[in-house]
């Protein structure tokens, strides 16, 4: 079983590392999507079926599209997607920011009271998961839903801001 985990980990981390080192932004995005798919495969390996498919649906299906559109809409021409080598100062800033994030994450992980895993994984059905989400965690679910709805309404308001269409435009 552990060989599978090692292969998954290598694939996930490898695609993430290559994604960071590439000059072509679109290639990086596609490799990042592969990383997300690797995370989904890890969830599947760990027996969290529902989370794995949700990860696939949300990250590989939707977030990747959002990132791709963001890259395409912020470039002036298609040759612009390959970023030129940056100045040394930018590299220093990037390293500092990366180190800070890594430090925060490491501190959080090392300080969190992680219980050692029980010998057997609990078998959780989708029905139980739904019951938990709608019962004990209903408040957080609602908060996330409200946040996403506000974001959606905001996007609609931004998109609908143009001048009204002339009646002759739509035959």
């Amino acid at each position, binding site marked *: 079983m552990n060989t599978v985990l090692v292969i998954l980990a290598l694939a996930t981390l490898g695609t993430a590392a290559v994604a960071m080192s590439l000059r072509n932004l679109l290639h990086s995005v*596609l490799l990042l*999507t592969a990383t997300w798919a690797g995370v989904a495969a890890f969830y599947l390996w760990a027996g969290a079926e*529902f989370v794995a*498919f949700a990860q696939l*649906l949300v990250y590989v*299906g939707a977030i990747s*599209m959002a990132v791709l559109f963001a890259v395409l809409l912020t470039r002036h021409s298609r040759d612009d997607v390959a970023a030129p080598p940056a100045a040394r100062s930018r590299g220093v800033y990037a390293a500092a920011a990366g180190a800070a994030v890594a430090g925060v994450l490491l501190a959080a992980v090392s300080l969190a009271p992680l219980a050692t895993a029980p010998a057997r994984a609990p078998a959780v059905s*989708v029905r139980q998961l739904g019951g938990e989400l709608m019962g004990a965690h209903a408040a957080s679910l609602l908060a996330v839903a409200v946040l996403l709805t506000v974001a959606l309404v905001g996007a609609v308001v931004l998109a609908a801001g143009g001048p009204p269409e002339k*009646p002759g435009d739509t035959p």
Partner: protein
Amino acid sequence: MRLLATTDSSLLERAPVLLRDALSGLLPPPARWTANALIEIVAILAVFGTLFAFLTLAERKILGRVQNRPGPNRTGWFGLLQPFADGIKMLTKEDIVPHAADPVLHYLAPVALIAFSLLTFSVIPYGRDLLAVRMDASVLFFFAAGSATELSVFMAGWSSHNKYSLFAAMRALAQLISYELPLLLSVVPVVLAAGTLSTAGVVAAQSGWKWGLVPHWHVFTPWGAAGFAIFMVSALAESNRSPFDLPEAESELIAGHLTEYSGFKYALFFMAEYFGMCALSGMAVTLFLGGWQAPLPALEFVPSYAWFALKLLALIAGFMWVRATLPRLRIDQLTRLAWKFLVPLALINLGTAAFWSLTYPWGGSLQLLRWAVALALVMGPFLLLGRRLSAGLGARTYRYA
């Protein structure tokens, strides 16, 4: 991966599973699990590959007859060998990659597309004992695997290094993303009513007959009929079929994001389109038309996979009939139909389904009230939204035609 033959069913019903067990029984026990999985994969590939070949022929024949011409009739009897001639032609054609194209992505796009569309076949129950992968969340898996096809459409459009291909890919993405929403929303009531996310569970929830005559299929409830209609319209759009085939629009856009593809890679895109149509039709059969269940108790002696095949082929024939009948939509009409009509209707349909399952214990004359309220909840918004959608759009006048 555990296909256990139920003992009380007929020999014909158990035949596929018995055949598989006989084949894998030749191997030592540790290898049997892998052998079973491989046999199932080969069976799915063989069945749907053959179905794809003959569906292309059937489509050309049907379209031909509708347009008052014979269709392919030169290769073999009634043109039956035409798919094989097409296959040989596709394999021997030159594979052209544009000079400035991104070769890796250009190669990966059709491969990723076909891989993800094949994944969706693994969770459809084709018969009482015929389900390749039994999972708790298989409905979610179906749509998760299907949503990855958008990525390959983008890869195809961008890697071609052709601005028209990129525009077409963006248009195709707008369509796929818009119609994924009503597609998923029309499935949620089924999950609500069946109380499970597994395809086998959804089929089991539709078993039995009312008064020994009307099957308990979801399509025979008000919310089920509305959900089925929304699902089928969205499925037409998700599989790029006419009247929503404007990503390809071979007569106007030279096949959109596929312009720079030729030879077998183009054939793979074509194949993925048919596979997508088959998978979505199979899902519609599973979710709304009772899956492999027989329509009448007296007809249960017919093997369950035959019923599934019959329903699947009927839905695909419907797809072809629609293609022969309806003209293509424009992109603004297409997105308006999704966002202003199908999405609100699907959301209201969720409420109807909730009402339907809350009023389950109602009996007697209250049953009539239940039907009346549910039908009003389905028909009222449909009529109101439909009127609003077509408001201000009078009959089209053709000035130069």
